């Protein structure tokens, strides 16, 4: 397949090395980190209003975290050798630490926190359910069936402690992803000390927006009334963090424009041509400025609940789309120009290949399937606390 090239590329640069799967990797880990931060708002910072989303946020983080290594695995030339990263890690490599950061976050933070939070429910279900479900829940208790007051208090304290550790861990997980790109001095599009920080804030933005949407969607699906106090609070936090994220990105942009180093002319041309739609239109205008404006207006004007909900859905969808575009522009954009700064190549996305669009779509659907299973297994919403929507049939059972 002939790849269209403009100007001069070093001959080995014409073919892009990192495909849409590597776009998914920071996108998915970002959702994980963001969802966890939202959960920690309630647990650590005692933002009681967002309590209805606490468990949902944790399960969302876990669902996406389980999928996070798959795009990397599929992209490797030799996936069968990936375990070597654990066995013989090269300590100077930013990428070598992925496995350890991932395992730490999965095993020491998320799974432990979810288990501690759900332990009471799991034990009760292991006693009340029958058949296969009973067996599954009994396994999930890990033999710890003590529900005494003291035992539950320990769960609570330990859970709090893990969340406290979890916040820097979430920052580490996604900051680390940013560092993978930001530390490549050969690539001026990536090389920036701001990259990990921008990645952390954009992760929070995307994760909070995703959980907000999932909360609204799942509540509606269950025929319950959305807790507007909770929704307003989430939207408020989303707005604040989004403003910080946008400021950081603009700071980076202004610095680049003002410095105008040797790479600037080349990168500027790329933004005005190949990345115009994905960066300026989708990421900045539709995916950042518009949702910030919508969320900002909602902070100062009083409108009906129904209207606010619609605005939040719109802002949430635009936000997630904008952050995806940001990942795209970082990963793909960083490979479209020559390191000679004299030319540009193109990305031709394959369709039904190992690194094609179809695989990417499947990988984006997979976390929702995991989430569905997790929600069935460990219902995240206390039924007593939510009010059935007027005129709607309450969902039966606990889920």
């Amino acid at each position, binding site marked *: 397949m002939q790849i269209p090239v403009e100007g*001069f*590329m*070093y*001959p*080995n*640069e014409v*073919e892009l*090395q*990192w495909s849409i799967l590597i776009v998914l990797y920071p996108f998915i880990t970002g959702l994980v980190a963001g969802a966890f931060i939202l959960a920690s708002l309630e647990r650590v910072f005692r933002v009681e209003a967002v309590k209805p989303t606490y468990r949902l946020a944790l399960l969302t983080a876990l669902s996406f975290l389980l999928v996070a290594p798959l795009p*990397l695995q599929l*992209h*490797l*030339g*030799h996936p069968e*050798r*990936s375990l*070597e*990263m654990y066995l*013989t*890690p*090269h300590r*100077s*490599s*930013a*990428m*070598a630490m*992925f496995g350890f950061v991932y395992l730490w976050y999965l095993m020491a933070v998320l799974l432990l926190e979810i288990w501690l939070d759900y332990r009471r429910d799991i034990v009760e279900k292991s006693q009340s359910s029958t058949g296969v479900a009973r067996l599954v829940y009994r396994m999930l208790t890990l033999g710890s069936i003590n529900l005494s007051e003291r035992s539950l208090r320990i769960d609570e304290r330990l859970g709090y402690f893990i969340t406290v550790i979890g916040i820097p861990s979430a920052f580490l997980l996604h900051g680390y992803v940013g560092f*993978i790109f930001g530390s*490549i*001095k*050969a*690539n001026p599009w990536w090389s920036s000390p701001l990259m990990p920080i921008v990645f952390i804030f954009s992760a929070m933005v995307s994760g909070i927006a995703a959980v907000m949407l999932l909360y609204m969607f799942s509540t509606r699906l269950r025929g319950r009334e959305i807790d507007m106090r909770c929704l307003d609070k989430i939207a408020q936090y989303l707005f604040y963090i989004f403003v910080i994220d946008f400021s950081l990105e603009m700071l980076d942009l202004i610095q680049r424009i003002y410095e105008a180093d040797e790479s600037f002319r080349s990168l500027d041309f790329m933004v005005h041509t190949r990345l115009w739609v994905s960066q300026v239109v989708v990421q900045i205008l539709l995916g950042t400025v518009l949702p910030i404006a919508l969320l900002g207006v909602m902070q100062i004007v009083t409108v009906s609940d129904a209207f606010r909900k619609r605005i939040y859905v719109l802002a949430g969808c635009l936000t997630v789309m904008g952050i995806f575009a940001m990942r795209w522009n970082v990963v793909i954009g960083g*490979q479209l120009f*020559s*390191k*000679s*700064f*004299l030319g540009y190549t193109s990305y031709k996305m394959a369709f039904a290949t190992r690194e094609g669009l179809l695989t990417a779509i499947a990988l984006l659907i997979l976390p929702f399937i995991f989430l569905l299973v997790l929600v069935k297994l460990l219902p995240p919403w206390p039924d007593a606390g939510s009010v059935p929507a007027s005129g709607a049939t309450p969902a039966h059972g606990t889920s």
Partner: protein
Amino acid sequence: MDITRRRLLMLLPAAAVAWRYVQAGTPEAAPNYKLTEHWWGMLIDIPKCIGCGSCVRACAEENDVPEGYFRTWIERYHVADWKIERPDVESPNGGAQGFPPNEIDGKNFFVPKLCNHCVDSPCTQVCPVGATFVTPDGVVLVDKTYCLGCRYCVQACPYGCRFINPKTSTAEKCSLCYHRITKGLTTACCEVCPTGARQLADLKNPKDPIHEFLRTHTVQVLKPHMATGAKVFYNGMDGSVR
């Protein structure tokens, strides 16, 4: 078990296959070569390069380089007057077949490129499993039996010297013909260069003419601001080269 003639004949092909595997995993013998006595680099004398492409072809043949990828290539620069920041550069098929006549006025010259075998190589730094490494004699190599094919090294190389070999799905680059230089030969590209524009240099050998050359000429490395400790030295390099 008694070895009958029939059994021996049956065992021989299997033994031959097994022996091939043993050989494949064994480094080529270089009994008189002492790693610690060498420190390899290369000298490129730009005014001498005529852009014939012999080096590119020899490299491809010697190292079984897949079509469309290059362990070494040649770029032709055209610099119009004072515009050294915006040169016109081309490298059709890596310059393997030479270059069409260039009738444009201005400064024209050829720049052969290859891995710079950097002392502080960014590609080695980022490899998650250490499959790419610097040998004690200063050559950056890739262990293709260990490489994951993650492509991080390709991204990290400032010079565009690396690619993924579609046959092995592993990273590949110039090995400075390590299989030749450890036997006292020069690299394939240096061997065939008709003008001596490329010269293998042993920086640890005090008798190597490179030392005299470096003392008496104005020599540069590519992208010195990258601070990679590049060991491919360019004589007569124009400021427009990147």
